[in-house]
């Protein structure tokens, strides 16, 4: 279950602006709230923030382009 939790959490922060903003403001507590394991929490607090922002922007523009 814990590995699928991590994938679900990543999907949320990649796609949902509000979830992502909350996460970037307090990564540890948001990751804990999402039910990630202690090891996953330690990994995700070190997230590549530039990459996350660029990925989110790219997904958003892709979605807008599809409409």
């Amino acid at each position, binding site marked *: 279950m814990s590995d699928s*939790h991590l994938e679900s959490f990543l*999907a949320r922060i990649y796609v949902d602006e509000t979830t992502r903003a909350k996460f970037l403001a307090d990564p540890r507590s948001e990751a804990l709230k999402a039910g990630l394991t202690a090891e996953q929490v330690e*990994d995700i607090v070190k997230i590549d923030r530039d990459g996350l922002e660029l990925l989110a922007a790219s997904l958003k523009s892709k979605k807008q382009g599809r409409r």
Partner: protein
Amino acid sequence: MVDRDRFGLGWRPKLALGILSNLDRIDIVEVIADDFFRAPRRERRALRTLAAQTPITLHGVSLGLASSVAVETKRLEQMARLCGEVEPVSWSEHLAFVRGGGIEIGHLAAPPRSSATIDGAVANLRRARAIVGVAPQIENVATLIDPPGSDRDEATWVSEIIRHSESDLLLDLHNLHANALNFNFDPVDFISRIPPERISAIHLAGGKWIGRKGAQRLLDDHLHDVPDPVYELLEEVGARAPQALTVIIERDGNFPPIEWLIDELERARRAVARGRQRAAQKAIAA
């Protein structure tokens, strides 16, 4: 031993006329399978007609094989039905996850590179092989983010999935080029760590730089020409892979005239030929 390398283009409606007018210079056409899963009967018939004229390879974009979560059976059955109708020479999918917790990402996301996603991918590939009847080729993806939760590098992760599955690698050289620049590794070292006999297909594409100064990344957007370093990587693969390769150029928009794409295909042919020649010379010298 090399039988015959094949060079082709990704099928896009705006390229249809150009492709159909140049089938003597295009060895194979790659079709996005997902576009036909729910297509009207006449469109599927048109695809069968195309398949009768030229070899087709089907390319999936939404299975989400590289996940700790099992791929839904109905998605694999859709692929199986289409493969049954079109009889492609091969089919392929990405080493990506595309959804999680009910959320569709709308993109091929690189999963955490961990033993959990290796096990998940291998299990999904086994089911794909069982339901479709043939194992898919699996493609490395481009990523703008270093996937959180990863405990190994991309070459190790990809190699482990290949070693534990029946699937060969569809090596996307622009994805590799982009990841190597974005995350500072040597793409030739990556190629050297993949069992060469398991590379059976190649994707070529282009991209553009995005982001602010100091935090730029190369985006694989399929809207630009194939850059020079990608042809150099193709020559490397040509020198190492012992078997025939299928090389596809992917272009999703900002379309140039078809002659331009055919020229890119010719350039790809020359790059593979140079690699093959290097391998032959090395064999003679040994």
